[in-house]
């Protein structure tokens, strides 16, 4: 079981290099992350983007990019389509978003899934490493579905459980989050929690457990508990997978790494492999971890296929 991002980096070093397309590495943090990931033996990059910017940044971070495959393209959507197209045609194992708005990447993936008639709902899993926890926790969907309905949540959860199984978690614990309180009416998200719990019990997601809670208060304090002392908070109660009700919630939550002592790492699950989704605001250390996670997921997927 992969318990930490150190595990991820170690395995990426062992299983790499894997061919990875970088969509618009047109920012020094992204180019630096590509350089360091290549040096660590994680990836063999295919760089897609503006020629001048890539050359300039390569020089700036001391990275000779002439040895790698480069595809010169300026149009943002075309850059994304090219990279995702290579993933879906099996020419490479992983794609990573660079300095390009995420919407372009999701659009490319959704089009490619439709063309492949995979029936796959694309979703993003944002892992968190919380120091001392000994396992990875993750929010989903943090990228694609704005207000997912029950059927979409089933697919989102299926993707996340699949990913956790891939990382060696035999029976991931899941919390389905809802904003429902003891007053204020009933929420669709709470109804979905009940339905998802039944579906999980019926084995619809494979080995997993949806816990009997829909908020962090219920997770950490129980149904009738009250916070007495901050030192009593046991972080080990946090489940592996946190299914959020809406995109707003997921995106706000997963990027709290800018605030809390956690490290984030986001992966889009597609039918043909992993797409790393660093934020355009991320720094090279964080991007390297995301690329390493992409390598590990790609390797485990190839293992599954074999």
């Amino acid at each position, binding site marked *: 079981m992969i318990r930490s991002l150190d595990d991820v980096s170690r395995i990426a070093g062992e299983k790499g290099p894997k061919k990875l397309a970088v969509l618009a590495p047109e920012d020094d943090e992204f180019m630096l992350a590509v350089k360091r990931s290549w040096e660590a033996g994680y990836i063999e990059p295919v760089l897609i983007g503006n020629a001048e910017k890539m050359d300039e940044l390569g020089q700036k971070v001391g990275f000779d990019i002439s040895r790698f495959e480069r595809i010169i393209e300026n149009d943002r959507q075309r850059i994304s389509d090219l990279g995702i197209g290579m993933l879906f045609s099996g020419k490479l194992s992983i794609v990573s978003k660079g300095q390009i708005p995420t919407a372009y990447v999701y659009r490319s993936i959704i089009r490619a899934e439709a063309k492949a008639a995979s029936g796959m709902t694309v979703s993003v899993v944002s892992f968190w490493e919380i120091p001392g926890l000994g396992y990875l926790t993750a929010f989903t969907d943090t990228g694609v579905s704005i207000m997912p309905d029950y059927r979409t949540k089933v697919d989102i959860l299926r993707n996340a459980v699949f990913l956790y199984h891939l990382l060696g978690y035999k029976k991931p614990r899941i919390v389905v989050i*809802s*904003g429902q*309180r003891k007053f204020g009416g009933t929420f669709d998200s709470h109804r979905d929690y009940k339905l998802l719990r039944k579906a999980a019990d019926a084995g619809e997601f494979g080995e997993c457990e949806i816990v009997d809670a829909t908020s*962090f208060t219920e997770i950490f304090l129980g149904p009738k508990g009250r916070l007495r002392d901050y030192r009593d908070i046991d*972080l080990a109660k946090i489940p592996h997978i946190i299914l959020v009700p809406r995109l*707003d919630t997921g995106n706000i939550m997963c990027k*709290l790494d800018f605030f809390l002592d956690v490290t984030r790492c986001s992966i889009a699950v597609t039918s043909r492999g992993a797409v790393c989704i660093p934020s355009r*605001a991320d720094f090279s250390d964080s991007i390297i971890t995301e690329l390493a996670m992409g390598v590990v997921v790609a390797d485990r997927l190839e293992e599954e296929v074999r």
Partner: protein
Amino acid sequence: MAGALADIMEAARKETAKRRLAISSVKRPEMEIISRAAIEGLIVPVLVGDGKAMEALVKKSALQSLEHEIVDVKDSGGSLRAAVALVREGRADMLMQGADGQKMFMNTVLDAKTGLLKDKLASYISVFQLPKSDKLILVTDTFVNNYPGVTEKQLILVHAIKLAGLLGIEAPKAAVLAAIEQVNPNIPSTLDAAILSKMAERGQFGNAVVEGPLDIDCALSHVAAARKGLKSDVTGNADIYLVPDIESGYLLAQSLVFLGKMEMAGVLMGMTKPVIINLPFVSRENRLVEIALASLL
């Protein structure tokens, strides 16, 4: 300017007039808190409920030797209504939730005819003390409104700006949060945020600087925002975080408490008189701060 929750306590202690705090359904935990608030000189407790039971509780507490009042109400279901009535009639200055259930308490205080609602809506503000920093941040709405539209968010923001002013933040910076920092017609929260931001530009929120839509990384980090091409005084330095809906706000507040271990006290805004609600993720220590905060309103 209050930079820590302790500053709120200090400011409340300096208030010369003790506030009369009405509370029904008092159990031992509430008795401990209001006794401490009375010892601090913040309040005179007005205990509403079965007189004999109240007296028995008082005898076992520090309140025994302090100024207090007991209002005898035999009907257990009527004690909350009686406490609200005391506040409405001016015989008490603020209301605190005791052991009454959340639904009953909120529905009673928010009742348009018999409750304590002043504005078109109430909103809840979670005041967090940033660790390793001399700064308080206000996150709203984290408890009351489910899916506010732009009209409701306007008022929620006005409430937060008002509280910021009371805490000494004269020109508060507000980040209106959404999933992304760009305006996307498919994501309603980004539209609401853009409208509020434009309203602020036109001076509709006074001295407040309002920026939105902002995703949380841009709101929290000036550097992150700059990398996304955003330049604003708000990024990395927001005093107010306006969340898109309760699905986000309720989880965000709890996350900062449980995962960030950040001290939090909350306050209900939009009421005729201060109302202190009882949320399980507010520590007992910080419920005392909530009394202090309410006494400053």
